[in-house]
């Protein structure tokens, strides 16, 4: 056990966690932010064009600005990996790879991660043709045959980007058409001669030695490619809700409009919650509300304490 007990511990440092940190800082709560890495998934966004005051800003820069703001309020972000969360005697114990922290209130803002296919070869060939970032890696597949897995906007935009370099791009999607993508994007991919659609297709495994050589689909069909870009959406961290017995819906933490979870003293904000819109601006809004809720609860508990003390003093005078 190290150090003091924090009023508030925030797990995660994306826009939700950082905004909660900013509000908590201004409420003068003794606050700790714990995060595997600073910034969250927004850091990887090439451009953010819908955050008020910016027509366009790199996700990386937006995140940096928030981190700076948190820093100026004197709140520390500890880059540690949370291993175990539990409630103990009215406090929360947060065991990380470095030590154990204690707090009175908890905000979970751990966001989401890119979903993995979960097939043989995916892990083994990561960095050897398997990629989750088309912007990063498209340029390495010049004149190669490449597959993009998925059918959302991000899959289609990835395919368009990869097609600028690759010889041929197969979009492999398990449904029979692009239900979830914007028609405007579909129209553009339709016209791209390098792009070929493979609907009703699911990847069974990724094969290769030193690098990706082919995909084997579940129906047995083989597709020879030198690269695979996996764009099948995101999923939340399921471990933390499980440890705290938080109620979830499809893995996302269920919250009310005060960002309260079903467990007292635990709040959640941002992409990890069952909110309807997973954007920076909504994450920030939820982070702010979560911090206020925590602050209000702490205040009530402190007031209760003071009343008690008053009572005792009153008795003493008598």
């Amino acid at each position, binding site marked *: 056990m190290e150090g003091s007990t924090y009023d508030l511990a925030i797990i995660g440092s994306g826009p939700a966690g950082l905004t909660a940190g900013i509000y908590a800082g201004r409420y003068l709560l003794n606050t700790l932010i714990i995060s*595997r890495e600073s910034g969250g998934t927004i850091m990887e966004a090439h451009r953010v064009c819908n955050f008020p005051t910016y027509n366009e800003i790199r996700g990386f820069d937006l995140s940096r600005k928030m981190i700076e703001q948190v820093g100026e309020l004197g709140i520390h972000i500890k880059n540690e990996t949370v291993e175990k969360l539990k409630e103990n005697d009215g406090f929360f114990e947060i065991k990380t790879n470095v030590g154990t922290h204690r707090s009175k209130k908890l905000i979970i803002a751990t966001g989401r991660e890119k979903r993995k296919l979960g097939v043989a070869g995916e892990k083994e060939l990561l960095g050897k043709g398997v990629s989750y*970032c088309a912007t990063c890696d498209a340029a390495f597949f010049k004149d190669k045959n490449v597959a993009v897995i998925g059918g959302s906007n991000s899959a289609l935009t990835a395919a368009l980007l990869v097609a600028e370099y690759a010889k041929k791009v197969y979009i492999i999607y398990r449904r029979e058409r692009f239900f979830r993508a914007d028609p405007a994007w579909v129209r553009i991919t339709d016209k791209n001669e390098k792009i070929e659609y493979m609907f009703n297709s699911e990847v069974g495994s990724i094969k290769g030695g030193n690098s990706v050589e082919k995909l084997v689909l579940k129906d047995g069909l083989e597709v020879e490619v030198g690269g695979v870009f996996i764009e099948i959406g995101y999923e939340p961290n399921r471990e933390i809700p499980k440890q705290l017995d938080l109620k979830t819906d499809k893995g996302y933490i269920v919250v009310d409009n005060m960002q309260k979870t079903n467990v007292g003293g635990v709040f959640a904000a941002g992409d990890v919650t069952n909110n309807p819109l997973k954007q920076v601006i909504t994450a920030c809004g939820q982070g702010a509300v979560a911090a206020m809720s925590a602050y209000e609860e702490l205040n009530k508990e402190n007031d209760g304490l003071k009343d008690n003390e008053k009572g005792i003093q009153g008795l003493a005078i008598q």
Partner: protein
Amino acid sequence: MDEELQRIREMKMKEMIKNLRRDRMETVIEVNDESFQEKVIEQSKGVPVVVDFWAQWCMPCMMLGPTLDKLAKDYNEKFVLAKVNMESSRGLAQRYGIMSIPAVKMFKNGKVVDEFVGALPEPQIKDWIDRNLGDS
């Protein structure tokens, strides 16, 4: 007696050279297709070199960069951090079969001894460095 003196002299000389090198050693350097042989391959025969293959267009690279800088400073000359910009060093991308960035490789004695891809969290990178420095 002369032999003894000679040995001491040699030892002192080695120490001086070592110190001189230490003074001059830059812990974070930028390398390209031309300087790679000297700054990475040759240098890794004396001190481990961690090579960060990155590009401006890669956001995870921008996240990882500052973490590696910090670690290079923290480890105080136990390794050299060499940055290779993929935009200007296409030859190296091909030579080392880079297909995904950020890609980080540890060079010792001119050879890659371990590698990882992606912006790993700091604790994991530390483990990776410790594991690989420990073997030397």
